[in-house]
């Protein structure tokens, strides 16, 4: 079952840390969002392998936007 990681708030994408194909565990940052002058790591809720990264650095995301898919 795929797991979607979505933006929690309006933010800009600061940097992408992981890549498609990487296996990540909860608490491991996949990317960094920037909002309210804060750099906020985005992590998976459950372990998985990244199958898609839907954004690039500089993109503006809104609350609920898809960031990453994991399988």
């Amino acid at each position: 079952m795929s797991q979607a990681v979505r933006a929690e708030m309006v933010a800009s994408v600061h940097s992408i840390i992981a890549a498609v194909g990487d296996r990540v565990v909860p608490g491991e940052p996949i990317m960094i969002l920037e909002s309210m002058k804060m750099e906020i790591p985005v992590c998976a809720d459950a372990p998985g392998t990244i199958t898609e990264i839907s954004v690039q650095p500089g993109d503006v995301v809104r609350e609920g936007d898809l960031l990453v898919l994991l399988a």
Partner: protein
Amino acid sequence: MSQSPSVDIDPRSPRARLAALFDDGAFTPITPEDDRGVLSAVGQVHGARVVAFATDPTVQGGAMGSQGCRAIVTAYDRAFADHCPVVGIWHSGGARLREGVASLDGVGRVFAAMTRASGKVPQISVVVGPAAGGAAYGPALTDVVIMSDAGRIFVTGPEVVRSVTGEDVNMDILGGAEPHGRRSGVVHITTDSEAQALGQARDLAVLLAHQGSLDIDAVADRDLGAYLPESARRAYDVHPLVEGFLDDGTFIELHARWAPNIVVGLGRLGGRTTGVVANNPMRLGGCLDSASAEKAARFVRMCDAFAIPLIVLVDVPGYLPGLGQEWEGVVRRGAKLLHAFAECVVPRVTVVTRKAYGGAYVAMNSSSLGATRVFAWPDAEVAVMGSVAAIRILHRRRLAEVPEDARAQVELELAAEHEVISGGIKRAVEIGVVDEVVDPTVTRTTVARILLDTPGVRGVHGNIPL
């Protein structure tokens, strides 16, 4: 005292569940054991006196009739008289239909007893099966609601929902751990099993009943600064800092998944029960918003009512902006936190670890709201907003004239200038909004000493489920 039940007793029966709650399975019933659907008892939990009741799902699905409701009121009367916590174990379909309006009257009397006891004796609910209708509002009126994996809380069941709204839902989606642990805020703690739920109730009951006194010699300093990342802009999870501040292994978080941008919970410091409120930068950057303000407000009022001192760890960039927040009532719900702190009379110490900006600065137990003491770590900022954001407003025209490639540099220079003028943390100390700059390596003992030296009083008010 009656002893542990024999092995062939129904595990859902009040007798079995009360035995699992009390020390050594021992308790003394204070109401008759018959078909009234509720059994109330007194006993010990971790050595502390506790009154408890359990609904009986083996009789009419645990439905509450007038006699059963009277048994709950008896439990409350006893808890009131003995001045001890009351734990309710819920597995009930609600009011007994066959008793008609008499059962509704009984349920209403339970609600009235709970409200009379509110803020006077600690009330803990453990929901271990469906708790519907009146049985949903019973737990909801209490201070802490714990739900096991089998717990479900809803006003109207799936069939009624389907017939009225057409929504095809099951009990889990309506009122399980996901909706109540994460969305509604009804449940404070969700667990994977009934045994864990009762275990959490036991740990909380003793934290509330035997608060202990602060032993300053038992509080050693630790470098709490080590829990922060190197970059001041980088978000981090505040849980290790909270756990590091309190005595090892004592922290019990409430509402962990609901409004996770603020962390609230109980633990011990130097052996004394202490509440913690902390912004969590890892979620929403640590911003306050309508839900987190409401969550913290309710927690602060509970601690105030039960004479539990508070530690407030502040790292907040502001209130979360947006249409959604305004329409959700961030003004009304944010006001609850201001009200809660301003009326709070228990010792309450603030530590600004990195930053406190704007309205969120005020709300997080500021000096102006009557904090016992406000400390700041050496690199902390206390301001209306961050210096770059401030100069972008103050020098809007001047910045507009600067070529784009040079703007970042000019902004940095103006921000540095602004910090000198507005004074940073030094100025905050001068005007008295921060009492003292304290090093992270001595914060633990410094705060503990303040809590020790401040007379313990309690707020005289109920704990309405905000």
